[in-house]
């Protein structure tokens, strides 16, 4: 997740009939014939939505029509000028942005696809990206199309953002407390207890991993894996301590850290964690950051956890796996009320796929934690991987759907 606040950008969404959720939810024969009909007649592709051509130059903004029926409108904007431009659909008051597409460089074409109710609007091109833009009146007539209820989106986004920021604060607090405990056990040579606490403390890191990773200085210091280091890089952080506590997988001749070495490494981890804690107190999150963060956490699972690469020495990958899934689910659930105003079927599908993945994880619980990765057989790993794929596909559409 990118921690820098960026503007929430309305998505350029068009309805897509091949979504698994839509497939699941639809009355099948009717939906199918609809799809096939579209498939057989629409050779020009993607013009099912009313297509309007916009020719944007440095001094003009020509929209092919001044009027369109309500429903999903598609503005195909081509910048034929020399300056970077933007295109807006503005509400009747000329202030509220109904939809926008930014950063259209000279020569490029970008689509703005926006669900548009009947009413009076303005179209606007903004060459040079400054000023009020070159505006023209635009009328949307009533086609009878049933547009999704909008709800009070600003409130829902605010609630999601507030809840997610609180979650990040809470997790960093727990992470800091447990990292301090871990440090004390490790430095004191209480290795069994340190080993027991290691995956439990890291769970809090994994739950907010995409946020923590957004700090380019802290992430390598705290969470670098030895295999990912470049020659000359210093190996520090969680996995350095992991290697010291579980030396069985270490290279031949590995010599454990002495007390001074342990103290130095562990203190550095605590200091880094304190820094992470301090930086996350006042963080705010936009809807796209939360949505992309959820997807990003599943990508972390797919690339590091389900492959058993993350915890090379301890094999406690499933704790991390659960942490990533927890974080992704919290992000999704924060956005879920907003998503449900936009795409119920997608919300249902994501929720179902989270549940299905959790069932597989729960089957690997052991005591207060999980079995080691090395205890999984091939079929179990494959099952987890399939469930991650199944969840990640619809989750990859979350951001776009909530911004639509």
């Amino acid at each position, binding site marked *: 997740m990118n921690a820098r606040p960026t503007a929430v950008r309305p998505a350029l*969404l*068009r*309805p897509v009939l091949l979504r698994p959720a839509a497939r699941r939810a639809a009355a099948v024969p009717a939906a199918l014939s609809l799809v096939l009909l579209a*498939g057989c007649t629409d050779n020009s592709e993607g013009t099912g939505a009313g297509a309007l051509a916009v020719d944007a130059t440095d001094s003009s903004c020509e929209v092919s029509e001044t009027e369109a029926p309500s429903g999903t409108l598609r503005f195909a904007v081509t910048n034929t000028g020399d300056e970077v431009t933007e295109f807006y659909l503005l509400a009747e008051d000329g202030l509220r942005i109904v939809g926008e597409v930014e950063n259209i460089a000279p020569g490029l074409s970008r689509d703005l696809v926006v669900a548009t109710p009947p009413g009076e609007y303005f179209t606007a091109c903004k060459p040079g990206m400054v000023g009020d833009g070159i505006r023209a009146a635009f009328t949307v007539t009533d086609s009878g199309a049933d547009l999704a209820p909008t709800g009070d989106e600003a409130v829902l986004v605010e609630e999601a953002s507030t809840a997610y920021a609180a979650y990040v604060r809470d997790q960093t607090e727990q992470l800091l407390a447990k990292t301090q405990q871990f440090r004390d056990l490790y430095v004191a040579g209480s290795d069994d207890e340190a080993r027991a606490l290691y995956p439990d403390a890291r769970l809090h890191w994994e739950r907010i991993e995409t946020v923590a990773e957004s700090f380019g200085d802290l992430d390598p210091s705290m969470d670098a894996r030895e295999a990912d280091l470049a020659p000359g890089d210093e190996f520090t952080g969680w996995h350095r301590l992991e290697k010291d506590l579980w030396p069985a997988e270490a290279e031949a001749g590995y010599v454990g850290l002495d007390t001074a070495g342990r103290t130095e490494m562990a203190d550095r981890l605590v200091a880094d964690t304190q820094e992470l804690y301090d930086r996350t107190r006042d963080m705010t999150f936009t809807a796209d950051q939360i949505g992309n963060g959820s997807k990003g956490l599943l990508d972390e699972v797919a690339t590091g956890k389900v492959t058993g690469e993350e915890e090379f020495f301890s094999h406690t990958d499933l704790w991390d796996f659960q942490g990533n899934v927890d974080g992704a689910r919290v992000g999704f659930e924060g956005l879920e009320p907003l998503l449900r105003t936009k795409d119920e079927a997608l919300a249902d599908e994501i929720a179902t796929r989270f549940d299905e993945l959790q069932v597989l994880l729960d089957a690997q619980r052991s005591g207060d934690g999980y079995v080691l990765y090395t205890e999984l057989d091939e079929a179990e790993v494959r*099952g987890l991987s399939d469930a991650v794929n199944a969840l990640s596909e619809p989750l990859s559409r979350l951001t*776009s759907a909530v911004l639509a």
Partner: protein
Amino acid sequence: MSGVSRRRLLGLAGAGAGGLALGVGAAATAAATGLDDVLRPDRGAGDGTAYPFHGPHQAGITTPAQDHLHFAAFDVTTTSRDDLVAMLQAWSVAAERMTRGAPAGEGDPASGAYDAPPDDTGEAMDLPPAGLTITIGFGPGLFQTADGTDRFGLAARRPASLERLPHFPADALDPARSDGDLCVQACADDPQVAVHAVRNLARIAFGTASLRWSQLGFGRTATTSDEQVTPRNLFGFKDGTANITAQQDDALAEHVWVPDADTDASTAWLAGGSYLVARRIAMTIEPWDRTSLREQEAVVGRTKGEGAPLSGGTEHDEPDLAMAGRGGLPLVAENAHVRLAHPSTNGGVRMLRRGYNYTDGITPLGRLDAGLFFLAFVRDPATHYVPMQTRMSAQDGLMEYLQHVGSGLFAVPPGAPEGGWVGQQLFA
């Protein structure tokens, strides 16, 4: 004219300017567009060809064998029959679109929702349909698991011949390259188009079915049309000389399509379909290359250059299996491949083969991991494949240079009519 996009081409064709067979006819006939020269000429001729997805039989069987293959087998991971049906429907929609050169989904691969991944993965943009065909089959596991579980209420509809192929002598099957609940055979004249097709179907399948194994193939090793010349396999011999071709209606009816007579009420869904046998046959390339031409021709039973039977004539002359040479020994040896494969030694049965060469890098011993990905369509594997393969595995002289390492059997339902989907008869 590099500016002719896939979309533009289809727009032209849809307006009648092209002459593409855009799913409007039932017959699986190709039509060259005449636009090849404006469409990535570097991709070779014939790329503008499109075959209709809909029709009485699935495309990709009698369709003139394309140059490239991406074959994939899937495990169905859902327990929901509705989800399975929805996926097959979505596959059919996407397959119909892709075979006419359109993106897999409604959305454009390079525009549309900026905060969502595109519906189509995009690597086939700017490429013509390239003769893509997508053929879908059902493995025995879809009907019943090994322990007898009726997964989707289909057990009673499983044809008796649809079961795992038996263990043939010298089989060394890798489970990771064998079987599967579903298969997709994607053939095209451009490998990127074939890979694109399977990749997008796999994406649609996430949560319902997952890829079990796949195989890339190049250099078709069979001829399925009288217009094609006979290609060569990696042993350097012509392959597919006596294959059933699309023009041989009587032979297709007798040996390839499942006739009504072979079905009853519970298996009528397969009438007009076929069975697909898939075998990954590793060739021991290096020992073969050190074999004398005499030995090579003797085990094949044909000449290497012309492909004529060793009993004389030219490529398409029938071998005279009785003709004797010096010492009274038959010119076509008793263990020659052509003798053991010939219909006259197999109760008259024939099959329609459309296999491909493959190379997957090298083995840990530094040898080419290469061979023939054998694909054959037959009316009934119990009569048209199993007896022949049993004898060939035991007796074929060529087996000294072959090892069967992957295997799968799938029932291929008939084609979907306009507005329908592949498999709808089974789930009705």
